[in-house]
């Protein structure tokens, strides 16, 4: 069974003449241990698709199954819990808590409830080690470099051991070399931990590093092909 399965999912914004169909009848599935690169021009609906998969938006039509469960039927609380426990988000810009250190940013997810604290601390240290962040673990987020910050964001997304990783342009603010390192770190974590991952990108060089490339145009998928 795929981890994520979208069937004929649509999402529009606005009414009448101002209506925008951001996502149109998209069907897509992502398996365990698979990184899907989602590529498309600006305004093609990439972020909207990611927000739908992460239950930040509800679709206007279609169903979204995660581990076989339809998340579109969830109420507000279940959506929060779903994001907390089963989704790991990595956003585009800096989205660390600025006054917390790298390590505290990771441990913060323990405050959201339902988790074993000692296990969380072990996990934070392990992720900091693996993502080459051990040297900056006690540095306040604002003093980290862009690449370090994005790797902390990846570590944070993995803290609660989610099944699905949703990553929106993680390298937008980085140069190619740093970006490639961040993407490689992400890929190895997904493969190592057997997660499913959608990575949105503008940049074809980043997209080429994924397992599969899905291209989207005007809200509809126009191509879907494996890269290895």
């Amino acid at each position, binding site marked *: 069974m795929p981890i994520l399965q979208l069937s004929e999912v649509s999402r529009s914004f606005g009414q009448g003449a101002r209506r925008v169909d951001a996502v149109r009848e998209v069907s897509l599935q992502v398996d365990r241990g698979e990184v899907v690169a989602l590529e498309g021009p600006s305004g093609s609906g990439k*972020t909207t698709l990611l927000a739908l998969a992460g239950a*930040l*938006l509800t679709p206007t039509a279609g169903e979204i199954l995660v581990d076989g469960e339809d998340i579109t039927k969830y109420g507000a609380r279940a959506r929060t819990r779903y*994001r*907390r426990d089963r989704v790991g*988000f990595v*956003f585009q810009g800096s989205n660390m*808590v600025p006054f917390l250190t790298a390590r505290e940013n990771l441990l913060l997810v323990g*405050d959201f409830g339902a988790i074993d604290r000692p296990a969380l601390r072990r996990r934070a240290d392990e992720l900091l080690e693996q993502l080459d962040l051990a040297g900056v673990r006690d540095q306040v987020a604002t003093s980290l470099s862009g690449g370090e910050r994005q790797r902390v964001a990846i570590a944070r997304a993995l803290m609660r051991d989610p099944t699905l990783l949703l990553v929106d342009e993680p390298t937008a603010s980085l140069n190619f070399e740093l970006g490639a390192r961040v993407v490689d770190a992400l890929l190895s974590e997904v493969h190592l931990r057997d997660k499913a991952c959608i990575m949105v990108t503008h940049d074809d060089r980043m997209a080429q590093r994924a397992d599969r490339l899905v291209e989207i145009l005007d809200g509809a998928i126009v191509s879907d092909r494996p890269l290895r």
Partner: protein
Amino acid sequence: MLALLEIRRRKLQFGFVTGVVALIAYLIIMVTGLGLGLYDAAGTALLNLNGDHLAYAANSNFSVIRSRLAEADVAEVRALPGAEAATPIGYVAAVIEYAPEETDTAAIIGVIPGSFAEPEVVEGRPLGGPDEILIDRSWARLAGTRVGDSLALPIGFQTRNFTVAGIVDQGYFFFQPAMYVDIDSWQELNFQGDPADRPAASLVLLQGRDLDGLRGENWRVVTKEDGFNNIEGVQAQQSTVDALRYMGLLIGAMVIGVFFYVITLQKVSLLGVLKAIGAPGSYLIVQGLLQVLIVCALGAVIAVGLALLTEATVLASDAIPINFTTGAMTTASISVVIAGVVGSLLSARQVASVDPIIAMQQQ
């Protein structure tokens, strides 16, 4: 973790608000203390009288100053069926000379020596004759007057010396220290002319039940508390002080409210991210309220410290009518905390309304 760490890492901002809250709380404690002090100065001596009702002259409009009762009125009140005990009291404000060229005004209260209107002495002995006086303790301390000293009071165009027999702690009356003399001496201090025409008392102090509202042709009985509230200026003074206190609380609530609202607005995008990664709204609101509570509680503690310091330094050496009671400080502190929480409810609403989708929309 979030609330405490933010305070620790952003000491300057939080230190600043805490300081402002502390000053506001201090102001409120001062105003509350002033209210109590003025209240006491206005007439604790009256409230401390060992009775529960007072008879005033019918035409006095319950003013101690204007009330004058004749011998016959006093006798009538004394004979009331509900009155278990009754004794006349006289009041007059007089200038006392306690050292050469050193004068002060005092509330001279005339009582029948040995009656229940004569207060207990805390030092010395009770009134023993027409030329003796009981003086107020705090005034005695300020004036440096002791038991056995002599005070000069004017009678007509002359002065008469009174010997301090004892010291009492009845408080103030009309913002003057209360001092007690034999009611016959009071009569001489207050009225000249034919002794037969002089009023016998200002008031009659009564002990007994079901006396409130009783009236005769020339007198009216009210409770001691009603009598107190009718002291000239007491009502206006207390409402002024209360208005100041509520203003202080309002300003405090607004300052705290605005501060937390602004720092919440600054954090909207961060709150969106935290909600997106699964932070429940209730968690974020609790963190915010925790900060408000910490800031307000710390501010209140600092304010109480400042108040105690003021009490030990400025107030100890002067006759400023500010009264710091534990009650006043507790009430002021709790009020500040409540005002802070109320002021920050707007921020709580703001936190609740942040849509986590904004985490994905920012560039």
